[in-house]
């Protein structure tokens, strides 16, 4: 009788501790990403409840964008999971021998970044335009571009909404842009601290660099 009781206690404790261990072993990024999406969703609900005129068609479009965004995030999250389960990369034509033995090849990394950019772009396009913030943010960006230290980067387009701005820049490949771009981001560290970049190579050696500058700080992963 005592042995059975002890066994039951042991199994119960083992179950509880297994649950605890499982929760600890889960990716911190997964937990964090899930939590960090909540405020954005809450903001959208608040924006809708605030009297914005939204048709059913717009709702469906917003939902589609949300699905695309979640799909892109899922793609990004699958990389660590894939590494745990398969132990090798998914790309067959690796750029280097080192990359072939790694869970995330350079091609995988490029795809993951593109998925992240797609999610950021989708989030940007969902934002309504806040005229006051948009004007102030655009002004700050122009001010940073005109700063002597930044030295002559020209923006092809500046589009600010309510939380972030999309800025198109041109890199001629001479090295001047590479030197000045960090100083541009540094000038805006206080107002638009979070930057996600997408570089699109152009024929002739130059490239178009699209920056998404957000006033929201990137959340640090839980340890």
């Amino acid at each position, binding site marked *: 009788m005592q*042995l059975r009781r002890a066994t039951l206690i042991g199994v119960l*404790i*083992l179950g509880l501790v297994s649950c605890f*261990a499982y929760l600890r072993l889960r990716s911190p990024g997964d937990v964090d990403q899930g939590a960090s999406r909540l405020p954005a969703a809450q903001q959208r609900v608040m924006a809708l409840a605030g009297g914005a005129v939204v048709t059913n068609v717009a709702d469906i479009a917003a939902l589609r964008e949300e699905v695309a965004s979640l799909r892109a995030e899922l793609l990004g999250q699958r990389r*660590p999971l894939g*590494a745990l389960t398969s132990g090798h990369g998914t790309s067959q034509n690796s750029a280097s021998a080192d990359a072939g033995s790694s869970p995330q090849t350079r091609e995988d990394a490029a795809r993951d970044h593109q998925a992240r950019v797609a999610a950021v772009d989708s989030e940007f396009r969902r934002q309504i335009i806040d005229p006051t913030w948009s004007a102030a943010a655009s002004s700050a960006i122009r001010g940073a571009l005109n700063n002597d230290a930044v030295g002559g980067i020209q923006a092809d387009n500046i589009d600010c909404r309510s939380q972030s701005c999309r800025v198109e820049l041109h890199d001629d490949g001479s090295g001047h842009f590479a030197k000045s771009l960090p100083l541009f981001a540094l000038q805006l560290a206080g107002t*638009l601290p979070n930057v996600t970049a997408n570089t699109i190579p152009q024929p002739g050696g130059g490239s178009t660099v699209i920056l998404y500058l957000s006033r929201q700080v990137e959340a640090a992963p839980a340890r």
Partner: protein
Amino acid sequence: MKFGTSLALALVMGVLSLSGLSTGVYASQVNSQGNMCKNYDAADATFIDYFVYGTRNLATVDKAVICPIVRVPTVLLSAAYSITVVFDGVDSSGQSHPCTLYSYDTDGTFLGSQGFLLGGSSIPTSVNATLWSTASVLCILPANGQGYIRTIDLY
């Protein structure tokens, strides 16, 4: 009953100790001294001064310094897909001086950045990355040695 209690205690202690070991896997950290930072512009080389524990600017105007982040991503951990640093600096100038953490691809493509303030110490700053990304921090140091970069801890 004594045997049962002992068995239960042994189970609890065993599994808890295993949980403790798994925590150790996550807690990889690289601590670097601020004196690895150097002048961002070639002309500023003679103004940037070093302590055993850090870097400061002796010019009469603010100067930019660049600090490399030594990164050893562990491929199986999600930490390989973002870069988080705790940056410790001192700013006694009475003004705000910005710093920015940058993430770059191996071919020099800019991936993203996150700004913060020198002197706003011990707040983790994160930027998205890939397994292959490199990182650096660019900081504006106040003039006349009125501030310095002390440590950059990556985890």
